[in-house]
C-alpha cells in the first residue's frame, strides 16, 4: 500500500512545482512604474526607487540597447540614458512624450587595480605606469559614451595618438573596469561613479574641461502612466543620492 501513496505524493509534488513555475506573479494593487535606464545608473537608481511610495520596476542595459527597446515599444514609462545622442535618436523616433531633462552628471577618472598608487595625468606618468608593453582599458569610442568622452579627453591632453594603439576597447565601460579590477590591465579610463565597490582605485582625475559635459538625460515615454512626471521630478530632486554614489550634480549649462 505504501507504493501507490508514494507515487501519489511524487505526482502531487511534480504538479505543484509545475503550477508554481507557470503561475504568474500575484496581481499587484498598483501597476508598477516601469523605468528603463542605462546600466551605470543602477546603484543610485535602485536607492532612489526605494524612496518612492509605490512599486517601481527597473530594467537596465547599455544606452543603445535600452533606447532600441523603448523605440520598439518596450513597456516603459520613463527612460534614463547615459548619452544625449541616444535620447535625441529616441525623440526623432517619436517615442518621447515630454521634454528631455538632465538628472545627473559624471566625470572620468583613471582607475588602477587594488592598491595602485596615484599618478600624474601626463604622457610620461601614464607611460611609466604601463611600462613598454602594457595596455589600458576603456569603452569603445564608436559605441560606448564613456569611450567617446575618454577619447575626447585624451585628444585634448595630446595623448590620444600615442595611446590609441595601447587601448583595449571594451563593449561597455563596466567591462573595461572589470579588466582593471581583476588586474588584467594596469589602467582603465572609466566613470568615477563606477569605481566604488569594485576593488579598483582612482589613480588620477580627468579634468572635466577636456571633454563634452557628461549628462544623464531622462524623458517620459509616449503613452506613459500619469505618475511618470512625478517620478521624473523625484529623480531631479535626488541629487544628494546621485552625489553619494559618485555622480556629479547636473552641470550648469
Amino acid at each position, binding site marked *: 500500500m505504501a507504493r501507490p501513496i508514494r507515487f501519489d505524493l511524487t505526482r502531487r509534488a511534480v504538479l505543484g512545482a509545475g503550477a508554481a513555475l507557470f503561475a504568474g506573479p500575484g496581481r499587484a494593487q498598483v501597476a508598477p512604474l516601469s523605468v528603463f535606464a542605462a546600466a551605470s545608473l543602477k546603484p543610485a537608481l535602485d536607492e532612489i526607487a526605494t524612496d518612492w511610495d509605490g512599486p517601481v520596476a527597473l530594467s537596465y542595459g547599455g544606452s543603445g540597447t535600452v533606447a532600441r527597446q523603448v523605440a520598439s515599444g518596450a513597456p516603459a514609462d520613463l527612460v534614463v540614458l547615459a548619452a544625449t545622442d541616444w535620447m*535625441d535618436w529616441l525623440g526623432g523616433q517619436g517615442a518621447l512624450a515630454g521634454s528631455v531633462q538632465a538628472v545627473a552628471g559624471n566625470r572620468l577618472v583613471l582607475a588602477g587595480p587594488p592598491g595602485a598608487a596615484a599618478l600624474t595625468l601626463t604622457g610620461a606618468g601614464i607611460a611609466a605606469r604601463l611600462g613598454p608593453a602594457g595596455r589600458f582599458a576603456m569603452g569603445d569610442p564608436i559605441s560606448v559614451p564613456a569611450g567617446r568622452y575618454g577619447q575626447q579627453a585624451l585628444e585634448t591632453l595630446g595623448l590620444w595618438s600615442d595611446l590609441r594603439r595601447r587601448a583595449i*576597447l571594451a563593449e561597455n565601460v563596466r567591462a573595461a573596469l572589470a579588466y582593471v579590477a581583476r588586474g*588584467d590591465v594596469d589602467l582603465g579610463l572609466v566613470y568615477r561613479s563606477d569605481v566604488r565597490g569594485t576593488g579598483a582605485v582612482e589613480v588620477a582625475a580627468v579634468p572635466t574641461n577636456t571633454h563634452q559635459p557628461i549628462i544623464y538625460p531622462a524623458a517620459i515615454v509616449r503613452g506613459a502612466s500619469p505618475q511618470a512626471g512625478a517620478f521624473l521630478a523625484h529623480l531631479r530632486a535626488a541629487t544628494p543620492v546621485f552625489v553619494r554614489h559618485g555622480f556629479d550634480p547636473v552641470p550648469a549649462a
Partner: protein
Amino acid sequence: MIDLPPEAWDALRLSLRVSTVATLLSLPLALWVAHVLARGRFRGRGLLDAVVHLPLVLPPVVTGYALLLLFSRTGPVGALLEPLGLGLAFRWTGAALAAAVMGFPLMVRAIRLAIEAVDPKLEEAAATLGASPARVWVTVTLPLIAPGILAGMTLGFAKAFGEFGATITFVASIPGETRTLPSAIYAFLQVPGADAPLRGLVLIAVAVAIGAVLVSNWLAPRVAARVAGR
C-alpha cells in the same frame, strides 16, 4: 554592392583570418580526440567526452571568462606566456583560440560519427595484406572518413565565424586586432543611426554562414564518390 565603412571590411577580414586559423589549428587535435572517443576503451572516456562537449553547452560568456582567467597576465598560463610576448588575451591569436574552443565539439562530433561508420573489416583486410597501421590509416581510414572531416571543418568554421560571447569576454573588441564581424555588429547596434552598415554586416554574416553549408553540401557527395572509386 554593399556600401560599408572601412572598419566593417576590417572586421570581415579579421573574422575570416580568425576562423581559418581556428579551424586549421583544431583539426589535428579534433582528429585525434574523435579517434579516441570512437575507438578507445579506457577509464575516463565518458569524462573526456563530457569535457569536449562543455563549450557546446556552457554559456559562451563562461567559456570566455575561463579563457581570460587562464590566459590573462595574472592567470596561470598567461603569466608564463606574457613575458615571452606570446600572450593571447586581447590579441587576435586569443580570438582564434576562443573560436577554436567553441567550434571544437562540432568538429569532433562530425569526425567521430564518420569513424564509427567505418567497417573495421576493411582495415583488418589491409593489415592482413601487410600494411603498417600508419599506411592502413592513410590509405583506407582517411579516405573513408574524409566527408566527415570536411563536414566537421565546415561546421567548426561556421561556428568560429559566428562566435561572439567568448570572444568579446576574452579579447574585447579592438578594431583590426580583435573586433570580429559579430563584435562589429554588436558595436554598431550601440550607435544611433548606424542602420546602413549594420544591415551590410548582417548580410555578410548570413551569406558566409549559408555559403559554408552550401560548399559543404556540394563537396561532400563528390568526396564520397571519389572515395567509393566512382
